[in-house]
């Protein structure tokens, strides 16, 4: 495999007999680092660990812990292609048996959570262990509205956070991800996100997820939805396009796990919260009709027309409508119906409409997770709509 970045190290590999667990850490403050290392050494013998980090290590405080300097990656709110290339290169070099990747602000993860994730790939046949975070209400809604339901419907995985910033990987999983990542790093796109759950599903590898409790989520550098949503959906849509031959097979969904304990939505002034979202949606309904009509079939456009005329208090986007909207945007992305940037931009006001609907629904007492599960179920139910349109993308359809 080509080396994307040089990886200087302070430990000669020949001196090692093989590492059990390579821990690849994101750049973090010394305090966070200390917390993570304390958590790790509380769960694993120091000699079984190899810590890779782009920043200098406090070697004096934990003398028996081995360190290696990881390639400096651009700080990111998610794991990137460059991270996966580095992970595999280091694991291969130091003969690690498994890899634990901990993203920014992983110091907020409980020690037991780290231990659970790592042990999954060390002591069980799991290839990919993914955390299930406990997030505050209304957090991670791009994931809840698009990433999770799409991944669940298409890749038959119930992983709740497919773009988790912490993961543990078997060596073969790491190799596969590095292969996928190499396509991006070869084009100097090392910051591109990757989709480990999709890769694992396509490879037939085993996936497991574990409740890890709360975690401070790293935030994107710019909190601009206009940047983040197209970035994430564009990357996910491309990956789905590349794996079409896989997900168009009928695969059973694994049994539902116990519902995540999500705190109920706090009593807030939903009307005030959703007002700007509805304003954006209604403005877009006026301005983006031309684009939407290139992407969406008549029934969806009719549904949006009804929504645009609905009062804020009664604003509810039907789950099936949202599922079809996302599927039709995915299809238009594949077909390049319009410029992909413009296309994904045109999805933003629709996403805001979904968020407004979600806030309204949860404000009325519905548990947020129940609503998200209902949305995911709608994606599964509408999957035939996507497949039929994917295979026969005729605009003459209902």
């Amino acid at each position, binding site marked *: 495999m080509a080396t994307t970045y040089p990886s200087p190290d302070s430990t000669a590999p020949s001196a090692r007999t093989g590492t059990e667990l390579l821990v690849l850490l994101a750049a973090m403050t010394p305090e966070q680092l200390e917390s993570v290392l304390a958590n790790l050494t509380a769960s694993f013998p120091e000699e079984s660990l190899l810590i890779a980090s782009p920043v200098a290590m406090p070697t004096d405080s934990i003398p028996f812990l081995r360190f290696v300097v990881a390639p400096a990656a651009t700080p990111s709110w998610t794991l990137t292609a460059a991270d996966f290339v580095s992970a595999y290169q280091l694991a291969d070099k130091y003969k690690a048996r498994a890899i634990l990747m901990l993203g920014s602000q992983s110091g907020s993860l409980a020690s037991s959570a780290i231990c659970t994730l790592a042990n999954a790939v060390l002591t069980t046949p799991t290839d990919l262990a993914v955390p299930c975070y406990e997030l505050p209400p209304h957090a991670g809604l791009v994931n809840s509205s698009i990433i999770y339901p799409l991944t669940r419907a298409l890749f038959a995985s119930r992983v709740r956070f497919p773009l988790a910033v912490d993961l543990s990987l078997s060596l073969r999983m790491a190799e596969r991800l590095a292969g996928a990542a190499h396509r991006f790093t070869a084009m100097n796109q090392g910051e591109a996100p990757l989709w480990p759950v999709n890769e694992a599903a396509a490879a037939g590898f085993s996936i497991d997820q574990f409740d890890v409790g709360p975690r401070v989520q790293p935030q994107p550098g710019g909190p601009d939805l206009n940047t983040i949503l197209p970035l994430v959906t564009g990357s996910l849509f491309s990956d789905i396009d590349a794996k079409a031959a896989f997900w168009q097979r009928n695969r059973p969904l694994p049994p539902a796990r116990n519902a995540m304990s999500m705190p109920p939505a706090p009593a807030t002034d939903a009307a005030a919260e959703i007002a700007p979202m509805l304003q954006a949606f209604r403005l877009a309904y006026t301005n983006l009709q031309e684009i939407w009509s290139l992407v969406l079939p008549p029934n969806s456009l009719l549904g949006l027309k009804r929504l645009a005329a609905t009062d804020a208090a009664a604003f509810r986007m039907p789950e099936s409508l949202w599922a079809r909207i996302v599927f039709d945007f995915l299809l238009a992305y594949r077909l390049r119906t319009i410029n992909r940037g413009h296309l994904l931009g045109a999805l933003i006001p629709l996403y805001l409409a979904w968020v407004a609907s979600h806030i309204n629904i949860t404000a009325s007492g519905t548990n947020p997770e129940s609503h998200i599960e209902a949305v995911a179920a709608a994606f599964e139910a509408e999957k035939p709509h996507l497949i039929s349109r994917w295979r*026969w993308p005729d605009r003459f359809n209902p």
Partner: protein
Amino acid sequence: MKKLASASDPLWYKDAIIYELHVRAFSDSNGDGIGDFPGLLSRLDYLQGLGVTCIWLLPFFPSPLRDDGYDIANYVDVNPAYGTLDDFKSFLDAAHQRNMQVLIELVINHTSDQHPWFKAARLAPPGSPAREMYVWSNTDHLYKDAGIIFTDTEKSNWTWDETARAYYWHRFFSHQPDLNFDNPMVMEEVLKAMRFWLDMGVDALRMDAIPYLVERDGTSCENLPETHRVIKKIRAAIDAEYANRLILAEANEAPADVRPYFGDGDECHMAFNFPLMPRIYMALHQEDRLPITDIMAQMPAIPANCQWGLFLRNHDELTLALVSEEERDYMHIAYSNDPRMRVNGGIRRRLAPLVDNNRRRIELLNSLLLSFPGTPILYYGDEIGMGDNIYLGDRNSVRTPMQWNSDRNAGFSKCDPARLYLPIIMDPIYGYQAINVEAQLSDSSSLLHWTRNMIALRKLFQVFGRGTVSFLNPANHKILAYLRDLDRGDGSHETVLCVANLSRFAQPVSLDLADHTGAEPVEMLGYVPFPTITEAAYVLTLAPYSFLWLELQPSHGNPTS
């Protein structure tokens, strides 16, 4: 420097969609009336959008062009009319960037009589290595059992050369002297030419006319053991020096004679399925599956790393060399009632005119092309239903410029129409103003869109390129039904039931699918679930010329395998 293979899977050709085109006919960038590599490069996005994964280029080497480039005068250069070597490299890189492989011609049976080797041979003393690059004789009675291929133009396979004071052997036109593979220098030169292109990154080679490489008296001079030894040497050289490359054999022979060209997986990776092609047309016109099932029953098993190349039409005439005299008569009457439609015993027409421009027939034939065991090869222009011009000589009837739009010269060239290498099709039915890419791209119901969708659908199912085939035997002979099956290697199977109505009228059919009891057929184009298969006969009704592809999905606890 030797370039690495563009394909990562050694069996890439099994999943490929091959598109055959002539650089000359595709797109002209410099307004000289002749297509060229920069023009072709500018159309790569179109081919990628169509779903093509491998581009087969007809000969583009320096040549007097007396046989459309199959008379090569220099194996290691580009005909200046089509561009330069750098233009070719740019095209190759651009194709690879789009994940498309490139297949070129390795025409080694013969050269042009304008090739420097032949010019030198004529002057060289008899028996010298230079002279022996070709096959000479003092008499034209040698190899009398070898047939003549171009019966419309050639009376003998020998031609007297006044300079050499001897006859030279040519299995094709008299201006195409055959190389002499009994001379080791010939093999050396052939390998040099091959390495020249493979080093550059070319992915695949079509070996033209390979049954005729070696001659022996008292034989038909076809398919000789010595010929297979030549092919094995070429293959061994490729395997030793390159990864993931392909040799495609052009051997217009009966099934039993084509099979040896695969060897034990150590000769050609692919061979055209010549015997099948005319039977598809015959079955369609007779509205009877027998011609197809009969020839398929004769198809020998081939090594696991080998593949058939399937085609409906190509740059040559629709060859009838492999059918009986009666069948040939039938095909002539059915498909070429005007004698101008025939050449060399075959039929020089394009796909759409062959089936009277009937959209459903075109779709049906393409459905067979895309679902029979093998790799489909599309001929340029057939994806939009281009027509032919039977008033042009030889096989030029099907080699007219690609029709891109309704502008001057069909968007093929900006030149004065009189400069075009061949005239554009201009009749009211197939003319460029009615049939062109631009119009069909803007029409979502066009044949182009249909073809694109079907190609995309096929690419989703590896079973079509890699699976086995077994024919069903329903009582209604107007129905052709077969199962494609691929063992995925993990205990599961990918199974597809294909049912085609060869008739112009609606037809019922009862299929025995008891082996798949419990499976749930899902119609693949629309993802429509059909009734679950039971032990009872599975009854379907098909509209005229319609076809169904049904994926047999395992039901819960009852896998189709």
